[in-house]
């Protein structure tokens, strides 16, 4: 088989478009907001727009990693935003120094202290998200409910559950050690970056070094044939949703730590849509099958680079959503078969179409 020319290979690579999108936004910044690239040092920490992109984008990158697995199985998880809220609420409640105390005074509530060890808080936080994911997975794989409907249940109910956990209050967190996840630095870089890197590396190793990645793709492409091949298609789906819940929980941990509070209504708002967008931009098809975790990370970075570039440009908050809509539109157009074919034809005049069957 003739190897295609290198230029064409690069263009047809799954990562070409997300990387191109990121590059274009950065190029735009280089021309119009050169200050975007300025990185300074303060108290031994790096700061600047680029650092903000990775720090603020960390929760989305985590959710996108989980969402990638779910989408690869041919599903979707609409509940990730609500799961973020649940996990944040779980952390906040356990931190609350008044927990278990009879006498609740404002003094106790606002004390920089907790009766629960931090490890327990983190574990409870992650467990809550994973349980939510398992619930979604059970509905999809066992009860055979369509993923969109199944996860819609938790999307709606989840925020209610988060409010039940915090007793309807927006809980402010005063416990300093908890802030480390969203605001801390290691060797000059935000802690959240390390968390994302860790989750990404572990997830990549698991899906590429074990057959799990292959099974997930097979389930996404043809669940029936996969079942006939002796693979428990149900357990693969269950695993994917549980993992997505787990990733959302970490995102919830970082977000609540970053904003010092748990707010059932607003934590992780609209994250499901951003995460789906990040995954799709990363080259994973909504119909399932082949996936790329790295692509999804790039997709999330594109979203946050764009957002912060708009801020840096001075675009008001109100106009930001419209700006995003333009981004989405461009991405969707670029990804459509029609425009790809057009581009393909522009690039190589011969126009030999690829991937055709016979």
């Amino acid at each position, binding site marked *: *088989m*003739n190897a*295609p020319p290198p230029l064409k290979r690069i263009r047809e690579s799954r990562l070409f478009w997300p990387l191109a999108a990121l590059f274009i936004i950065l190029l735009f910044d280089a021309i119009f907001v050169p200050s975007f690239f300025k990185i300074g040092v303060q108290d031994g920490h790096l700061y600047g727009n680029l650092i903000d992109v990775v720090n603020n984008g960390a929760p989305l990158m985590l959710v996108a990693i989980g969402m990638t697995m779910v989408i690869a199985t041919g599903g979707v998880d609409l509940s990730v935003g609500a799961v973020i809220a649940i996990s944040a609420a779980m952390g906040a409640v356990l931190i609350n120094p008044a927990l278990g105390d009879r006498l609740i005074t404002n003094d106790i509530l606002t004390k920089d202290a907790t009766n629960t060890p931090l490890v327990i808080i983190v574990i409870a936080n992650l467990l809550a998200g994973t349980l939510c994911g398992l619930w979604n997975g059970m509905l999809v794989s066992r009860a055979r409910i369509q993923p969109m409907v199944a996860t819609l249940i938790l999307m709606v109910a989840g925020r209610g559950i988060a409010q039940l956990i915090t007793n309807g209050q927006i809980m402010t967190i005063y416990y300093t050690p908890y802030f480390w996840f969203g605001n801390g630095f290691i060797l000059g870089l935000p802690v959240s970056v390390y968390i994302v890197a860790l989750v990404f590396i572990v997830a990549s190793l698991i899906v590429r*070094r*074990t*057959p*799990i990645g*292959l*099974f997930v*793709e*097979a389930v996404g*492409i*043809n669940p*029936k*044939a*996969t*079942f*006939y*091949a*002796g*693979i*428990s298609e149900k357990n693969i789906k269950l695993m994917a949703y549980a993992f997505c819940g787990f990733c959302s929980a970490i995102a919830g941990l970082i977000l609540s730590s970053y904003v010092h509070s748990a707010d059932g209504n607003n934590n992780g708002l609209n994250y499901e849509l951003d995460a789906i967008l990040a995954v799709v931009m990363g080259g994973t098809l909504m119909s399932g*099958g*082949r996936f790329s975790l790295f692509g999804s990370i790039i997709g999330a970075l594109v979203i946050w680079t764009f957002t912060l570039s708009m801020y840096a440009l001075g675009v008001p908050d109100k106009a930001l959503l419209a700006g995003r809509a333009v981004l989405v539109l461009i991405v969707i157009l670029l990804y459509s078969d029609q425009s790809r074919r057009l581009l393909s034809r522009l690039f190589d005049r011969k126009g*030999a*179409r*690829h*991937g*055709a*069957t*016979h």
Partner: protein
Amino acid sequence: MTDDRELVAMRGITKAFPGVVALEDITFSLRKGEIHALMGENGAGKSTLIKVLTGVEHPDRGTIALEGKQVQVRSPQQSQALGISTVYQEVNLCTNLSVAENIMLGREPRRLGSIHWKKLNALAEQALGRLGIDLDVTQPLENYSVAIQQMVAIARALAILAVRVLILDEPTSSLDMQETARLFDVMRKLKGEGIGIIFITHFLDQVYQVADRITVLRNGKYIGTYDTASLSRVELVATMLGRNLSDLHAVAQAKVEIAPKAAHACVAEAKGLGLKGSLAAIDLSLNAGEVVGVAGLLGSGRTELARLIFGVDAPDSGSLSIDGQKVERFSPHESLKRGIALCPEDRKAEGIVGELSIRENIILALQARYGWFKVLNTQKQYEIAAQYIKLLGIRTPSPDQLVKNLSGGNQQKVILARWIVTQPHVLILDEPTRGIDVGAKVEIQKLVLDLVKEGMAIIFISSELEEVLRISQRILVMRDRKKVAEYAGDVNDQTIMHTMAGDL
């Protein structure tokens, strides 16, 4: 050559895909009122040629003329407008829509902007009536058998106004004998109306029953066009394969060789195995080193039997023991661990994972048996893939080729490889040769006999009686979801046919 009867003339058609030349300088002509069989092995280029004619693919070179006028067929819509209508190999309909909706899809009669249902149903009935079929067109299509669905697909193709060319791509592969005969009547009638019919099939009998002329393709090249009357079957097969027929004889002899060694240990035993609404209680014992053929019409319970033994469905009565151990939990995964394998009937829906490569498809079941964490390393995967691509003669430029790009016969070989790699004790083959060409058929039959020699027990399900007779030591006959007879040793096809039909 100018011929005023000539309806379609394709000349010098060439089409290349990355890594393969699918068609090379193909000539094809179709006359008015002619049934023209397009023959060739899998991957010979028949489907691609049809796709070129119907505008799905665009040729790199070559011309197409319709009634002497040069045409460019750029899209399927345009080919329909030109009066070219196709029924594809796999039934391509929306099973959850009604029969009438399927037939009239895209051409719904309208009244005041909304669909005129009464007229739509009437038109659909009329279209089916042309085929001599009478059924409730308001029922969803999925309520009917695959055979009826196929007829609906044909009716849909015919419903297009002023059809001049009708292409039937493997229309009979899911029809029983009676239905096939009915289809042939329809074809002859249409032929009488001056419609040119391109007929693609792997059944030689059928070609000789209806075709006027035969065009043979091999490996994307044009071999020749012959009058059916002047080409003997042996010559046809030899032309298609491009080699002699000693292979066919080898299969016939192989059975004789292994028959005496058939008395081996029992590997699988079913006692009263059944599932309500699917299969009446059945007794079956299966020995190592033997092929048990299963004969029966569509819907006779053959596939249901395969599904029960493989654990796709769990039985609600009776018991099944494998290697002397009673099976408690039924699932494909459990079966895989016990050494049972099933090549399912519906290759597209239950067999291949199209977007994965040949290598990944081949190692899928083996990896499933290893579980989620024990890894088969990539190098080993490539070794296995290369070994089986060679062993089964899978035609592909590379093991990284996506399975969806392979022809039907090669896809079937990939599925076979997937299961043989796991070295099962019991291999169930449900229609392993359906819709594939003579060459691949013989190869698969030979493979079955080789596997049996190595001590595997095989359940061989096929609609082709002759094939079942040729390679089985025992034959199970099914009818109406029951086992009605079991024959060992010499039995002729007449006896089995009568048993299948229930008039014995």
